[in-house]
């Protein structure tokens, strides 16, 4: 028996969907630009079986990959579960066998030693293959046409970390992928293995080093010469796991630390910088300027996740779970281990920001992300008491002028992560933004496509699904040339 009735967060729009889907020739409001040839691929999760613990992290949801395939102005949708060993084991037992987020001590004994990964974070197209990524395990290869799961992938045995980040970076100049695994040698180890993988998928370089404390290393940034690796207040320990707690807790006394790692250097060449407590979960971009590294990201004041509570027993503070687009400057010519930080915009934003990826490592002008505009209407009687609490706008943030252009999704909508799709041979910022809106009133999901240079004019097309798509963590545009699409 599958019973979600005692899961208080899984009601209404957020009730599990539990099905796989194919929708051919989707309903479209407006006109899909014919120049879009590829797929918007989303990865996220849904609970196929109820969690063992009501307060577990949503990061434990079963992975679900889905794509909007664009060709000749027509859009088809396909969604499939990522068929991990965990998903299959649960299915065979007809119940959830796995316990709290990244805590095997809370599992049913029958699954001891099995890959616990749910593969629910980021889709990746690289070296002609489609992958799902989850930072606690290896990537899983997925068939880009059927979305069926092929299995874990270790780059011909040359990728030796047990884990693989959800946020590798591909250098647009060389096509190389910079990627890493943390807790690389197993649960609670303080090892990071950093890799350079060429555009054909061959591992070219491995660098092993240790972090000052075991912490979440969720995202990085790259310049032409360096890799920027932030770690911050999330802590973990074997004792904590044996007590049956979720993997991460928040320790406000831990400084934010940032490693500046030379891309062609050794562990001894790494510079560690230290700053006040922050949470840099996702990044925008970075660049070299002389002896300085300039790094920009939507950075939280403190712990953004209520399901990873403070270790001192205090209450999670939503007023500090706000991200601001900030610039941090690291002076490599200085012996000081501090850095400077400035807020580039005074408004708080979603930390799921994107740039035109062709400008990674370079000076760039535009960042895109979602934000909550409390001045816009929200019809609470149709959509619940969420006015001011949901991201209802996408913004284009001009780092050169400090101005922001805005797209509004609607009075019963919240927006998931934005994605930027560049126009072929276009200048920076020329192209489309894409992202899925949850329409709480109509109980359906809508893919937004808007001209990135004319956000105020609204969407050029809206692809309507006749149901609620599973929750997305990250979505990526994959051009037809990147994958062997049928």
């Amino acid at each position, binding site marked *: 028996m599958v019973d979600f009735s005692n899961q208080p967060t899984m*009601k209404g729009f957020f009730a599990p969907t539990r099905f796989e889907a194919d929708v051919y020739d989707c309903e479209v409001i407006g006109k899909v630009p014919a120049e879009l040839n590829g797929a918007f691929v989303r990865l996220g999760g849904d609970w196929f079986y109820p969690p063992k613990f009501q307060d577990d992290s949503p990061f434990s949801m079963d992975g679900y990959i889905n794509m909007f395939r664009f060709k000749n102005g027509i859009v088809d949708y396909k969604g499939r579960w990522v068929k991990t060993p965990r998903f299959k084991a649960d299915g065979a037992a007809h119940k959830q066998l796995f316990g709290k987020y990244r805590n095997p001590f809370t599992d049913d004994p029958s699954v001891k030693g099995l890959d616990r990964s749910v593969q629910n974070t980021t889709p990746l197209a690289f070296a002609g293959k489609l992958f799902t990524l989850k930072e606690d395990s290896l990537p899983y290869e997925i068939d880009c046409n059927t979305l069926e799961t092929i299995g874990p992938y270790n780059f011909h045995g040359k990728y030796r970390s047990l884990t693989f980040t959800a946020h590798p970076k591909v250098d647009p100049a060389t096509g190389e992928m910079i990627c890493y695994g943390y807790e690389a040698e197993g649960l609670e180890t303080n090892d990071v293995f950093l890799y350079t993988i060429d555009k054909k998928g061959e591992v070219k370089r491995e660098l092993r080093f240790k972090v000052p404390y075991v912490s979440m290393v969720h995202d990085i940034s790259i310049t032409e010469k360096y890799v920027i690796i932030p770690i911050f207040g999330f802590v973990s320990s074997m004792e904590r796991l044996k007590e049956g707690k979720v993997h991460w807790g928040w320790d406000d006394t831990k400084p934010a630390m940032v490693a500046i790692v030379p891309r062609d250097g050794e562990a001894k060449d790494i510079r560690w910088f230290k700053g006040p407590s922050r949470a840099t979960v996702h990044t925008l971009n970075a660049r070299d300027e002389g002896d300085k590294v300039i790094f920009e990201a939507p950075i939280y004041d403190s712990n953004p996740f209520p399901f990873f509570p403070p270790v001192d027993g205090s209450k999670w503070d939503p007023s500090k779970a706000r991200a601001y687009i900030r610039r941090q400057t690291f002076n490599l010519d200085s012996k000081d281990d501090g850095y400077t930080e400035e807020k580039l915009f005074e408004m708080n934003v979603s930390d799921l920001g994107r740039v035109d990826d062709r400008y990674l490592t370079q000076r760039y002008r535009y960042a895109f992300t979602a934000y909550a505009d409390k001045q816009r209407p929200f019809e609470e009687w149709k959509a619940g008491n969420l006015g001011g609490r949901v991201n209802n706008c996408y913004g284009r943030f001009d780092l050169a002028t400090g101005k922001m252009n805005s797209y509004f999704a609607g009075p019963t909508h919240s927006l998931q992560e934005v994605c930027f799709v560049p126009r072929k041979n276009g200048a920076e910022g020329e192209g489309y933004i894409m992202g899925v809106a*949850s329409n709480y009133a109509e109980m359906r999901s809508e893919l937004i496509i808007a001209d990135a240079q004319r956000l105020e004019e609204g969407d050029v097309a809206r692809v309507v699904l006749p149901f609620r798509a599973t929750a997305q963590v990250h979505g990526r545009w994959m051009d037809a040339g990147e994958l062997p699409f049928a």
Partner: protein
Amino acid sequence: MDENSFRAAAKLTRRTFVGVIALGGAALALPAGALWAQVERAAARRSPVVSFHMDQPYLDMTGTAIPYYPPPGVRSGESAARLSEDLFRSMLL
């Protein structure tokens, strides 16, 4: 004021007044402390509440977060089959 009450009032010097206040404060302190402890215990016993953060509901175990109330009726996933035709249509409008 009669003579007796006048004499009683005359005996209430500033020193005796301060003494009475101090004694009264001490007498009140114990119940107030006990009351505060009760408030804290009650807060600790609060039921978890469904709240909303990052476009997702979450379970706030402290029970102190702003609750999330989804819209009523079919839009909250309630079965439409149980509703009368009139009620169903009223919810769609």
